[in-house]
């Protein structure tokens, strides 16, 4: 794992349908300045900048990193862009962490964003090139059959997805940055919304958001000088697998299991449900909570839905998932993974505000992307590993 690395600053914008008041540069700077303020630093103190976002087609800006160097104070410094589809926010944090763990830099600024209002994600994800036409329309169109397969495989009741849709939106009411803030959210409200891609209902999907998130990652010596408590990186891992191959388990992908095993091994975790205090997991469609509970080893195969149904993943459960409201409540796609990583850090720093999990000392941040084929995870803790 190399040198110690810690999160010493976190900054987020408020997530909204439209941030018409700012350019992309203004948006990322807003998050970056908040992270720097938290870290007690200015751009001058930063050694390198790592940025990430989802496909360029979302905003139609090719190589946006080139134009954002000034906005992120990167002139004369190393700056790079990471791209791993929906998991990119997580991967971006891990690339930045690697620069610290490798002993290359002491303070790295990591920023991820999306300004979904500039186009339409379903369009951008379904460009239908000739010769290989696809009937898959948008992310929901891709994931719906695999959710159906999960339901059939486990024989779970139909309402589990509804429970997650309600739980994460209730959590969002405690998070001032959250995009969807639905007072009085209830199962009836979710069940009254139409099926978009059956079995996925409207309120079981994530919103389209504008927003950015940023973190300052620091070496041990830099972390010791930070004004606020650090979150130490206990483990960091990425994995990927092809989207189509014979024998692929699309419901419970091997790459996700391997990534989790790696990050747990680094962090000394043998039973994630017991050893972790909370988790921020990429759940863009509500059914992915029970699916990832199994994939991430919080329970045995076929048991994820029972954990959700029991309330274990609620804010007052024994292993809260997505206390921030998660991707179901805020989804600036490129930033969504980084937000998971940053919220995990805020929990173990004790700075999560109204959605703080009492006494959280170790937390999982998780992101996935593409056809559930790219994975990025870290475990952060309040104690230096």
């Amino acid at each position, binding site marked *: 794992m190399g040198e110690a690395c810690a999160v010493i600053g976190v900054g987020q914008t408020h997530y909204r349908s439209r941030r018409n008041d700012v350019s992309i540069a203004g948006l990322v700077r807003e998050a970056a300045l908040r992270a720097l303020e938290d870290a007690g630093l200015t751009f001058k103190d930063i050694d390198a900048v790592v940025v990430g976002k989802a496909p360029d087609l979302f905003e139609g800006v090719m190589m946006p990193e080139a134009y954002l160097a000034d906005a992120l104070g990167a002139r004369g410094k190393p700056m790079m862009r990471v791209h791993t589809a929906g998991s990119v926010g997580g991967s971006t944090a891990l690339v930045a962490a690697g620069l610290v763990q490798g002993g290359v830099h002491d303070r790295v600024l990591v920023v991820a964003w999306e300004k979904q209002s500039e186009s339409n994600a379903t369009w951008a994800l379904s460009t239908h090139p000739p010769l290989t036409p696809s009937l898959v329309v948008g992310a929901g169109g891709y994931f719906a059959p695999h959710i159906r397969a999960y339901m*059939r495989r486990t024989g779970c009741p139909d309402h589990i997805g509804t429970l997650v849709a309600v739980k994460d939106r209730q959590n969002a009411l405690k998070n001032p940055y959250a995009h969807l803030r639905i007072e009085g959210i209830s199962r009836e409200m979710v069940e009254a919304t139409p099926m978009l891609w059956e079995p996925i209902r409207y309120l079981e999907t994530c919103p389209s958001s504008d927003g950015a998130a940023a973190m300052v990652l620091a070496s041990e010596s830099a972390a010791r000088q930070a004004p606020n408590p650090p979150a130490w990186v206990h483990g960091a891992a990425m994995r990927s697998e092809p989207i189509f191959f014979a024998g692929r388990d699309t419901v419970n992908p091997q790459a996700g299991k391997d990534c989790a095993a790696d990050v747990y091994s680094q962090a000394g975790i043998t039973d994630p449900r017991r050893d972790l205090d909370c988790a921020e997991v990429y759940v863009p469609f509500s059914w992915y909570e029970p699916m990832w509970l199994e994939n991430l080893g919080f329970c045995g195969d076929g048991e994820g839905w029972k954990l959700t149904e029991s309330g274990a993943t609620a804010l007052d459960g024994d292993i809260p998932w997505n206390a921030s409201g998660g991707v179901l409540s805020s989804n600036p796609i490129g930033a969504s993974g980084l937000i998971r990583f940053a919220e995990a850090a805020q929990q173990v720093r004790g700075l999560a505000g109204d959605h703080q999990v009492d006494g959280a000392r170790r937390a999982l941040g998780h992101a996935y992307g593409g056809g559930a084929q790219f994975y990025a995870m870290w475990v952060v803790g309040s104690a230096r590993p």
Partner: protein
Amino acid sequence: MPRSNSLTADHSLAFPGGYTRSVGPVIGRFLTELRDGRLVGVRTAAGGVLFPPVEYDADGEPVTEEFVEVGPDCTVGTYAWVPRPRPDHPLDRPFAWALITPDGADTAMLHVLDLGVFDLGAKPPKTLRAGLRVRPKWRAERTGTIGDIECFRPGVTAINAPVRADYRLSAGQALSRFLGGIAEGRILGHRCGVCGKVYVPMKGMCPVDGVPTTEEVEVPGTGTVTTFAVNNIPDPRAPEVPFVSAYVLLDGADIAMVALVAGIPAGEVRMGMRVRAVWRPREEWGQTMANIRWFEPVDEPDVPFDEIKDYL
């Protein structure tokens, strides 16, 4: 309304050529500045700035001779949305009348606020609110009348950025061969020489073993639905909603392909359902998957879940 038994006749009253109206030094200065594309107010004896200038203030005092340039940034106060303009209105599409105060002035002027293109009868847009910042749109040819300002409009907050990239996509050997087969009504795949799995369509390589594949296999147009989505999202590129996009495991293949399932109500499609390819008439065939219109159910028992569970 005149009573039905009354006689009526149209009548217009207009002084030929219009009145000649002298405007005096104060309003004259205002109109002269307008003609030159500037907004000015006039200072009152009490120190305020009246816009548009008048000769005597509300206290009945004559204004001073000091003219003050105001705007061009202005703020909207109250307003009235006009969803259906009358023939003599300044615009032929929805707009607002608004009280507009230029920066530096203490009073407002009623003028036209153009918020863009709306269908007749449109509701007021959310951007229309007190406090909206606007600027005058000047006519190119100005004559020294209030109409030299065509309207007021908000500042630029967004641009339209068309992006277009034109490609020529090359199918490559494997896909060309596959579509060549489709053009003859045949569905072709490759068997991997290492793992023995059959990929339809073939990729020319095995993604698991990382080796080229060359052994051609023809599979029938029958198969089994492993899983599916019922799509209710309209999309210009998709068939009508609801439509079923399904993973169809063709008999003899080891990986399912995504295809449209039709010929059955969406709500009756099942995992394990047996289907067959429905080909378009032969004279319509080309080197395209469109030769297969969709898959439809065949009258066979469903395949038990145990037999498809490893293909999900």
